[in-house]
C-alpha cells in the first residue's frame, strides 16, 4: 500500500491508483471534465486532455493532472490552493472561449457539465477573445452533432470505439481545427453509426444530443382529427423519476401513465404488452429452430439471436452482413406494437390508419431511426410515427406544467396496456432471454414452471453464459450487453465455434436501462444497478409473470393472429435484415 497526504488528510491506496481516485477515497472530490468512468463496467476515459483536474504535488515543478497521475509514497498534494484554483479557472476560461454562449437555447442546458463547472468556479467573464472554431451541424435520424460545442474530451470516441467497437467516431485534424467526426468527415448517417446513443449519454456538453420529436407530438395531440396512442418501454418507468428529483431506482409507472393521460394521449398503452407478443413469436421461433436442430436438420441456424434492440440490428447489418439469417426475424416490441395498433386496434375502435398516430416513449435513440425504416411503414405511413426518449418525455411533462410528483397512480388502458412480468424485464440485460425461457420452457415441456426467476441469467457482467435445464434438455444461453461484447459472441458464431443455442444481445451497457435516451447518469454506475433492481421488483409485483398467460395476448391470437408464427403473424410481426455499406464505390457528390 502507498501512503500519501491529500489536503492534509492521510490516505492509503493500492500502487497504481491515480491521485483522483486516492482523493475520492480520502473524501476529497476533485473537479473533472474529460474524465469519465463507469467503474462497475471497466469503462474509463482519461485522456488527460482538459487539465481541469490539476493538483499541486509538493516538490513537483508543474501541476499534475490527477486523473492520470499515479500516486507515489509520501506524496503531499494540495487540491485547492491559489495556484491550483488559478490554473483551473484559466483552463476553464480558455475552454469556454471556444464554446458558443447560447446556453439559454441549448438542449443540454441544466444537464451540461461545462455549465456546471462554470457555475462552480464562479466564472463571470471570459477575457480571451479571438477566433472560435466553426463546423457544420450534422443531423441524423437519431443524433445531432453540434461540433461547435465539442470540448474534445473524447468520451464519445471512447464509447464508440472501445466499448461499442462501432468505430464511427474519431478525433480528426489537428490543433484548433480538430473535431470528433466520422471518417472523411462524412455525416453520421453515412457512417457505420448504429444510433445506440452511448456517445450522447456520455457527452458532457451539447455537442451530441438526440433529435427532439416532441413538437411533432404536440401537433398531433392538438389535431382533433387524430387519435393519438402512446406506448412506454419497460426501462422508462425505472428512470423517469430521476428527472423529477426522485432517487434512482424509484418506479414511477403509475405516475407516468397519469402524466401521459394529462398530456392528452387518447390511449395510454404499454410496450410491455408487445414485449409479451415478441416472446410469443421469438420463443416459438426458438423452439422451432431448436427442434429442427435436435431432429438433425442441417439447414437450421443456431444459435438464434434476439432482435429487439435496433442499435444491435444496425450493428450486425453493418458488421456481420454474412450472418443476417442468424437473428430472430421477430420485430422489436416497439414495431410489433405499431403494427398491431394500426391494424387490430385501429379496426376495433373504427379509426382509419391515417388518423391514428402511434407515439413511443423509449430509453433509446436508435428507436427513432428504427421507426423511420421503410419496411416498418405501409404506403408511407409508419407503424410508429414518433419516438421520444425518457429525457424528452420528462421535458414535455415539465413544459405542460404537470406536477409529476403529486400525480395519482394511473393504470394502462386495455387492451394494449396489459402485460406480464416477463414483458417488464425486457428493460434489463438478460431480461429478454429470461422472459423467453419462462414461455419456451412451458411450451416445450408442457410442464408448469415452478420458479420463474432465472437467477443465472441476471447480472451485470458484459458477457454471461448459463445452461438452463429444459426438463432434461440443456439449453445453452449466452448474453452480451454493450456492442463490443456482442462482437465477441458474433465472431464466435461466424467462426463456427459458438456453443450457444440462443444469445441475447442489447447494445447498451446494462441493457435498455442504460440506453442512450435515459436520464444522464454522469458516470454514476450504481444508478444502472438501481434501475435494474426496480425493473425486477415490478416483475415481482405482477400477478402474471409469463407472456403466454397474458389474457390480452391470448385474446389477440384468438381473435386476430391465430397461432404464433401464423401467416398473419409473420406478415405483421416479422421482418428481414439488410446488409449495409457493402458497395465498392466512393461517392464523391457535393
Amino acid at each position, binding site marked *: 500500500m502507498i501512503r500519501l497526504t491529500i489536503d492534509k488528510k492521510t490516505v492509503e491506496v493500492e500502487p497504481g491508483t491515480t491521485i483522483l481516485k486516492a482523493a475520492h477515497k480520502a473524501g476529497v472530490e476533485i473537479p473533472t471534465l474529460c474524465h469519465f468512468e463507469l467503474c462497475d463496467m471497466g469503462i474509463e476515459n482519461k485522456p488527460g486532455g482538459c487539465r481541469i483536474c490539476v493538483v499541486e504535488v509538493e516538490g513537483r515543478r508543474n501541476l499534475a493532472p490527477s486523473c492520470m497521475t499515479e500516486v507515489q509514497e509520501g506524496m503531499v498534494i494540495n487540491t485547492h490552493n491559489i495556484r491550483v484554483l488559478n490554473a483551473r479557472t484559466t483552463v476553464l476560461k480558455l475552454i469556454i472561449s471556444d464554446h458558443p454562449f447560447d446556453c439559454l437555447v441549448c438542449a443540454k442546458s441544466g444537464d451540461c457539465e461545462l455549465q456546471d463547472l462554470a457555475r462552480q468556479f464562479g466564472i463571470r467573464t471570459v477575457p480571451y477573445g479571438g477566433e472560435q472554431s466553426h463546423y*457544420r451541424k450534422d443531423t441524423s435520424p437519431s443524433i445531432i452533432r453540434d461540433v461547435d460545442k465539442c470540448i474534445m474530451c473524447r468520451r464519445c470516441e471512447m464509447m464508440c*470505439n472501445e466499448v461499442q467497437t*462501432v*468505430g*464511427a*467516431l*474519431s*478525433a*480528426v*485534424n*489537428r490543433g484548433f481545427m*480538430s473535431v470528433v*467526426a*466520422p*471518417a*472523411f*468527415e*462524412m*455525416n453520421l448517417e*453515412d*457512417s*457505420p453509426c448504429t444510433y445506440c446513443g452511448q456517445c450522447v449519454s456520455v457527452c458532457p456538453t451539447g455537442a451530441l444530443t438526440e433529435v427532439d420529436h416532441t413538437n411533432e407530438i404536440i401537433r398531433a395531440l392538438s389535431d382533433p382529427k387524430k387519435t393519438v396512442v402512446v406506448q412506454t418501454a419497460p426501462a422508462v418507468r425505472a428512470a423517469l423519476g430521476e428527472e423529477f428529483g426522485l432517487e434512482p431506482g424509484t418506479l414511477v409507472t403509475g405516475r407516468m401513465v397519469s402524466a401521459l393521460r394529462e398530456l392528452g394521449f387518447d390511449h395510454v398503452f404499454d410496450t410491455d404488452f408487445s414485449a409479451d407478443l415478441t416472446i410469443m413469436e421469438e420463443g416459438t421461433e426458438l423452439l422451432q429452430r431448436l427442434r429442427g436442430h435436435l431432429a438433425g436438420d442441417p439447414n437450421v441456424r443456431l444459435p438464434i439471436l434476439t432482435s429487439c434492440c435496433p442499435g444491435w440490428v444496425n450493428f450486425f447489418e453493418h458488421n456481420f452482413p454474412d450472418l443476417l439469417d442468424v437473428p430472430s426475424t421477430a420485430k422489436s416490441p416497439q414495431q410489433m406494437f405499431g403494427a398491431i395498433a394500426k391494424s387490430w386496434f385501429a379496426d376495433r375502435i373504427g379509426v382509419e390508419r391515417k388518423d391514428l398516430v402511434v407515439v413511443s416513449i423509449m430509453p433509446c435513440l436508435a428507436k427513432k431511426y428504427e421507426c423511420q425504416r421503410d419496411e416498418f411503414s405501409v404506403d408511407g405511413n409508419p407503424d410508429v410515427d414518433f419516438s421520444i426518449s425518457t429525457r424528452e418525455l420528462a421535458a414535455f411533462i415539465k413544459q405542460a406544467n404537470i406536477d409529476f410528483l403529486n400525480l395519482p397512480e394511473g393504470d394502462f388502458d386495455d387492451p394494449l396496456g396489459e402485460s406480464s412480468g416477463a414483458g417488464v424485464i425486457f428493460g434489463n440485460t438478460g431480461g429478454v432471454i429470461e422472459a423467453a425461457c419462462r414461455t419456451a420452457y412451458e411450451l416445450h415441456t408442457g410442464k408448469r414452471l415452478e420458479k420463474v426467476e432465472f437467477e443465472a441469467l441476471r447480472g451485470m457482467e458484459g458477457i454471461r453464459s448459463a445452461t438452463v435445464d429444459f426438463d432434461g434438455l440443456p439449453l445453452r444461453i449466452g448474453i452480451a450487453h454493450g456492442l463490443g461484447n456482442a462482437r465477441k459472441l458474433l465472431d464466435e458464431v461466424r467462426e463456427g465455434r459458438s456453443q450457444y443455442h440462443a444469445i441475447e444481445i442489447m447494445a447498451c451497457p446494462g441493457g435498455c436501462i442504460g440506453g442512450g435516451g435515459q436520464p444522464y447518469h454522469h458516470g454514476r454506475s450504481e444508478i444502472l444497478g438501481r434501475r435494474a433492481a426496480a425493473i425486477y421488483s415490478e416483475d415481482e409485483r405482477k400477478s402474471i409473470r409469463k407472456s403466454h398467460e397474458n389474457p390480452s395476448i391470448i385474446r389477440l391470437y384468438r381473435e386476430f393472429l391465430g397461432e404464433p408464427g401464423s401467416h398473419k403473424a409473420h406478415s405483421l410481426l416479422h421482418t428481414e435484415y439488410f446488409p449495409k*455499406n*457493402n*458497395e*465498392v*464505390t*466512393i*461517392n*464523391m*457528390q*457535393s
Partner: protein
Amino acid sequence: MNQKINLAPEVLACMEHLNGSDGVEVVVNLPKEKVEQINAICNSFDNDPQELINVLHETQHLFGYLPAEVQDVIAHNLHVPVAHVYGVVTFYSYFTMIPKGEHPISVCTGTACYVRGAEKVLEEFKKELHIKVGETTPDGRFSINCLRCVGACGLAPVVLVGEKVYGRVSPDGVKSILAEYNK
C-alpha cells in the same frame, strides 16, 4: 474497399477542382492491382494496427497521396475503424489526401526565410497558380506546400521545386521560376 463513402463538404471542397466541376458525381474504383499493392504493404507489417503510421508512410510513398479508398483498404487490413485511419492521416501534415503536382513547390517558411519575405513569395505563387497551400492545380502540374527550414538559411528565402533549390527568391522572381516548367 467495401464501403460506400460520402465525403464531407470540407473534404470535397479541397478535392472538387480535381473532379472537373462542382456537383459531378465521380465514382472511383480502386483497381485490383492497387489493392494488392496495399495489401502487400500491410502484410509486410503483419497487419499490425500499431504499425498504422508506417503503413501510411509506405503507401503514400507508393501512391504519392492517400485517397479515401486507399485508407479504407488499409483500415480493413489492419482491423481498425476507417475513422481512426482518417484521424491519423489528417493529424500529420506529412500525409495528404490530395495528389501532389507534377512539380511540387515547397516554400520554406522557417524563421530565417520568413523574416526575409517568404510570406510574400508564397502569396505570389498562390496568386500565379490560383490555388491555396496544400492544393494542386486542376491540370495536376503544380502544387504548393510550406516547409520549415531546409538548412540553407544563408540563401533565404528558399523555394524548392521538386528537388531543385532556388535561393534568395523575391516575389518578382516567381514568374520566371514557373516559366522554367511551363516551356
